[in-house]
């Protein structure tokens, strides 16, 4: 087998996913939360592609492309929301949006 095992790729994917999750959990700026979400999605994509290679089946790559499309859609909607918030002169801070508080 040339190069590293899928295990290494998967570990890297997990690491990337964890970094993204940490960003989502720690940051208050909605922009950076969205960026962190991209990191998580890319972690998942890496895992998908690693498995596709391991199994010799391109379905994983197809799935990764679909995830990319969905991620692009999510960014459009997310950024649209952020722009709308800014237009309403709301603070760009996820902690400030707590109308759901019980």
């Amino acid at each position: 087998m040339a190069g590293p095992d899928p295990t290494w790729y998967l570990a890297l994917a997990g690491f990337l996913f964890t970094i993204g999750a940490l960003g989502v959990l720690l940051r208050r700026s909605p922009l950076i939360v969205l960026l962190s979400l991209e990191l998580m999605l890319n972690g998942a994509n890496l895992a998908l592609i690693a498995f596709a290679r391991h199994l010799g089946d391109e379905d994983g790559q197809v799935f990764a492309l679909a995830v990319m499309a969905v991620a692009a859609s999510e960014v459009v909607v997310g950024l649209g929301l952020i722009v709308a918030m800014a237009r309403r002169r709301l603070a760009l801070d996820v902690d400030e949006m707590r109308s759901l508080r019980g």
Partner: protein
Amino acid sequence: MTAPLVASSAGDVLVWVVWVAAAFACVASGVAVISFRNPFYSALALIGNLASLAVLYLLLAAELVAAAQVLVYAGAVVVMFLFVIAYLGGQADAPWAGGPNVQKLASVLASAAILAEIVAALALKAGDRLSRAAQVSSAFGSPRRIGQLFLTDHLLAFEITSVVLLVAAVGGVVLGSHARRVDEGEEG
């Protein structure tokens, strides 16, 4: 392009070198994304992250995905980010400001737990099964194969993806125009 990498042992070393470099760049840029105070830098770091991932995809014989990663992700999505950040201004919260609190502590703990679990699962349960990769032809991951799959086996997923994109586009327009109306109302 992938065939030589699979063949020789000198190639193996080169692959390892490339892998280590790409993985390091990937983790470093990932950490940078979540650490910068300025979202503009974060977005730039994300470009680096995406590029390093594209390299890894190439190592995994996923040429089309690597190309799409660079073109669509780094080229289009992140550029959109940059436009919005430029529009809104570059200030954001400092990630570690204010010292540790319950939320931060718990976040780190949860993330660490997830990572530990992934690693533990890989090390303890999956070692043997992942050791031998399938032999693949040089056409693996080529645009022709992927395109064939999209238009045959995964046609439904393909079409649904297109609908999702359409909905997102319409949603973006609606959000933007709605915000403009509110603006006018407040000004008027």
